[in-house]
């Protein structure tokens, strides 16, 4: 096994101290000279025609600098299929639709002004479930598409289909079949730091926007289009990203409020800040899409999976974000989690007058895993098999190509399953706790681990810049949002270059100075940037060794002469100090350049910084800057066939839960939780555990308590009292995390992406444990005490 200096250590993250001191600067903390505060007026109906907007009283309020509506600003088309506009004209389609906005000298005046805006509406019939929206004669949410062509149904024109083998035939031949319907609710990402931005223009008409995003370069593209729409074609946007208070997928689209800040800044000539308050974050930011899934799985007599049919309907809400591509990620586990030859998958995305949805950590995978893994337990039961044995029999294996064309290379699925079974003491416990209403359950996950080619490019750039003192700036287009990206990148860079991590500073979040990156999503940050860093480090080392070839021996000589001056007894060894070495003779480790042949010779060592200074301080000098662009060997999914090797490698994991259910109250108590993940290779043990713990607790929220409640399109629980996320006392059970290292050949030092997986299989693992405990299967999340009580009642 390779011996690493820093990879696999457990070390504090570089951004931690500033955060601990309250020094990190979030968008909330930024104030610019002359800055105005923007505030948005939202719709009062789920679906209505706008008849008139009266802004006159708002305009007259002292301190107000601009009031804008869709009627006095240029039209900007936004969203994944451009079916949305920052300010609505003619019609509102959801409660959060923006109808007007204000910029004022302080936030209170802005708020007061918004309240003075009067909008007259004519209410329209609305649809709040995909089922209703697909009925004949249902109200149409969008009468035309983005190009103005008439539209007569509520289907989002993004369809996902996948077929492999012959599912119908497999159904006839199957020995056992399990069928079920499963639902998942709307849930909110619940970043502790709410969303916001500051937009400002320079006098040339170029825009700078400081904003909460995970996609600075795609956002630059979006905003440049907006500039063109407002008459500033050819002008540029600089996107900068302050410290992010969590993001969890909320930064994968550009949002209405950002465009509104831009319009207000343009109109006033002043920087304009819009930061959402907690209620706005709940009611006007896009949550995770709810799903309704009909699933059938079947196996042969021995328990080998033979078929899987999944038909899914997603509630899109009123507009379309990149979240409409979540079925592409769902397709991964549906086609490829466990080995199954005959697969049919179909996803419909439906417009409704609900809040529109977007990405959240896991990107569709938690919804898919919920149906797959619950239904798999049902099938195991039908087949009379233990769910663990059943999973082992069908587990993914290394070096396999799945029906979707995914090339599985490294694969620790079996090891994950075994770890969970061992830790839970599965054999002793499964099926043996009914009398005490105790049970164990497990569920697995399959996800991209080597980025995912969602866009045409899946690339990322890195620049490495070394200074006179041996400091290394690693400049990246990736984004730290709390997940530990900077820490992973610093360790990989240090290891690859041959410096200590304290010498590395990661610089990110500025489209003007950082190299291009497609976005920090799909658990790709450390994987892609890590690989780019290894490439850039190699180039930097080549340059360093070329300079060393001339200057190494003279430097050694100079130092020895200096030593002799101090200590006349010292004898300078007789070496060829004018020798020009070959660059290939050198090694660089922990900030010291030495000869490979004599790594332990204390005389033949020169610090990196001395070599670097030699590069600068001479005639015809040079500097050590290197760059690299890494674009992983993966493919986009062919929309027609649903095939394509989306990721350069895949990640596996299994979660296990032991629960106890109170039959009187319906409450579920977690007794212990085990999470085993095939991570490829641990880069920083501290941050990887943080990702798994954090994802798991979000998953437990998804399983047991989180639900974004609505009534006819209006959110009912826009606060943390009514929208319950886990708090510290809820984490009152032992947790065991196991990172299984499979040394992926494509990963940086063998590592695969782990940002999202911790959340994915939690809910089905818990539901399966509940079934083991009390014999009832809950099919819609969250698993509340009421649902358990009513299921118990039905069972009797």
């Amino acid at each position, binding site marked *: 096994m390779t011996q690493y200096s820093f990879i696999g250590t457990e070390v*504090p*993250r570089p*951004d*931690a*101290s*500033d*955060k*601990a*001191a*309250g*020094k*990190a*600067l*979030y968008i*909330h*903390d930024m104030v610019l000279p002359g800055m105005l505060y923007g505030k948005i007026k939202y719709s009062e109906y789920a679906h209505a025609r706008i008849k008139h907007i009266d802004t006159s009283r708002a305009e007259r309020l002292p301190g107000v600098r601009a009031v804008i509506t869709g009627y006095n600003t240029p039209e900007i088309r936004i969203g994944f299929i451009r079916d949305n506009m920052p300010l609505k004209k003619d019609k509102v389609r959801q409660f959060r639709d923006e109808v007007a906005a204000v910029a004022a000298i302080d936030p209170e005046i802005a708020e007061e002004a918004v309240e003075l805006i009067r909008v007259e509406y004519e209410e329209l019939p609305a649809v709040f479930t995909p089922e209703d929206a697909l009925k004949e004669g249902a109200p149409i949410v969008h009468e035309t598409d983005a190009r103005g062509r008439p539209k007569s149904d509520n289907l989002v024109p993004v369809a996902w289909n996948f077929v492999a083998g012959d599912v119908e035939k497999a159904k006839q031949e199957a020995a056992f079949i399990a069928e079920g319907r499963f639902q998942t609710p709307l849930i909110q*990402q*619940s*970043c*502790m*730091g*709410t969303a916001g931005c500051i937009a400002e223009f320079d006098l040339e008409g170029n825009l700078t926007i400081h904003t909460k995003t995970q996609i600075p370069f795609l956002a630059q593209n979006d905003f440049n289009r907006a500039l063109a729409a407002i008459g500033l074609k050819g002008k540029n946007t600089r996107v900068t990203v302050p*410290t*992010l*208070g*969590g*993001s*969890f997928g909320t930064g994968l689209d550009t949002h209405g409020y950002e465009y509104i800040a831009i319009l207000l800044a343009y109109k006033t000539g002043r920087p304009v800040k819009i930061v959402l*308050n*907690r209620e706005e974050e709940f009611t006007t930011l896009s949550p995770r899409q709810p799903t309704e899934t009909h699933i059938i799985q079947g196996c042969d007599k021995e328990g080998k999976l033979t078929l899987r049919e999944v038909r899914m309907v997603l509630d899109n809400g009123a507009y379309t974000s990149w979240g409409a591509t979540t079925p592409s990620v769902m397709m991964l586990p549906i086609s490829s989690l466990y080995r199954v030859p005959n697969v049919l998958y179909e996803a419909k995305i439906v417009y409704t007058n609900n809040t529109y949805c977007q990405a959240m950590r896991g990107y569709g995978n938690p919804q898919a895993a919920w149906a797959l893994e619950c239904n798999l337990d049902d099938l195991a039961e039908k087949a009379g098999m233990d769910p663990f044995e059943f999973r082992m029999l069908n587990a993914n294996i290394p070096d396999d190509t799945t029906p979707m064309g995914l090339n599985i290379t490294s694969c620790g699925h079996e090891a994950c399953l075994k770890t969970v079974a061992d830790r839970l003491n599965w054999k002793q416990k499964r099926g043996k706790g009914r009398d005490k209403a105790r049970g164990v359950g497990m569920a697995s996950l399959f996800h991209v681990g080597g980025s995912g080619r969602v866009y045409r490019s899946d690339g990322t750039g890195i620049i490495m810049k070394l200074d006179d003192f041996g400091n290394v700036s690693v400049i990246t287009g990736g984004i730290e*949002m*709390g*997940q*530990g990206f900077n820490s992973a990148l610093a360790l990989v860079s240090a290891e690859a270059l041959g410096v200590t991590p304290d010498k590395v500073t990661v610089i990110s979040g500025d489209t003007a100075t950082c190299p291009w990156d497609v976005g920090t999503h799909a658990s790709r940050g450390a994987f892609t940037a890590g690989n780019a860093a290894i490439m850039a480090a190699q180039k930097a080392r080549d340059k360093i060794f070329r300079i060393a070839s001339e200057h190494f021996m003279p430097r050694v000589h100079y130092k020895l002469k200096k030593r002799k001056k101090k200590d006349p007894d010292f004898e300078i060894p007789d070496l060829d100090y004018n020798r020009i070495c070959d660059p290939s003779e050198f090694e660089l480790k922990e900030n010291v350049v030495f000869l490979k042949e004599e790594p332990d010779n204390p005389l033949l060592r020169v610090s990196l910084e001395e070599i670097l200074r030699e590069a600068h301080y001479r005639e015809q000098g040079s500097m050590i800057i290197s760059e690299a662009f890494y674009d992983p060997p993966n493919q986009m999914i062919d929309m027609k066939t649903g095939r394509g090797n989306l990721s350069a490698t895949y990640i596996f994991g299994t979660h296990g839960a032991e629960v106890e259910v109170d039959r009187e109250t319906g409450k579920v108590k977690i007794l212990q939780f085990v999470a085993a993940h095939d991570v490829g290779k641990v880069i920083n043990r*501290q*941050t990887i*555990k*943080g990702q798994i*713990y*954090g*994802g*798991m*607790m*979000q998953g437990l929220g998804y399983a047991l308590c989180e639900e974004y409640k609505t009534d006819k399109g209006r959110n009912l629980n826009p*606060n*943390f*009292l009514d929208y319950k*996320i*886990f*708090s*510290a*006392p809820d*984490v*009152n059970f032992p*947790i065991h995390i196991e990172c299984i290292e499979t040394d992926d050949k494509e990963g940086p030092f063998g590592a695969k992406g782990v940002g999202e997986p911790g959340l994915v299989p939690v809910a089905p693992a818990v539901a399966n444990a509940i079934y083991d405990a009390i014999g009832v299967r809950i099919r819609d999340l969250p698993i509340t005490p009421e649902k358990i009580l009513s299921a118990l009642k039905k069972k009797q």
Partner: protein
Amino acid sequence: MKKLIRFTLNGHEVSAEVESHRMLLEVLRNTFHLTGTKEGCGQGECGACTVLVDGLSVDSCLYPAFEVEGKSVTTIEGLVEEGSRLHPIQEAFVEHGGIQCGFCTPGMIMSTKALLDENPHPTDDEIKRGISGNLCRCTGYVQIVESIRKAAEKY
């Protein structure tokens, strides 16, 4: 109505003209530019705004600024010692992975300070109760509790 309030802020005597409806959080952030104290909800539900008033932890978003008259307020900035040395609690959070996005961190650390000042050797349950008003979406709390346990060892 405006009033001049005088209080001790991170060890220094300060004063400010404040309107009656202002909360302490706004005064700290907007008047004194101490932006380390965060606003996560503005309604007493998340604990991101936790500061100490006369040693007790309060949600500064709900604490009327008028009421700090004559009292002593400590914010996250007040824990950092001369020469930018972190307080042992801050250090423990850094060392043991108690920080991810960092937005909950200042409030979490101030609640920890209040807890350990009163109970220097808390059990895990007492730790969890001590930070029960502080929500964190990133960490799942495990490494936060670990950080607090380690901080207590040095307290």
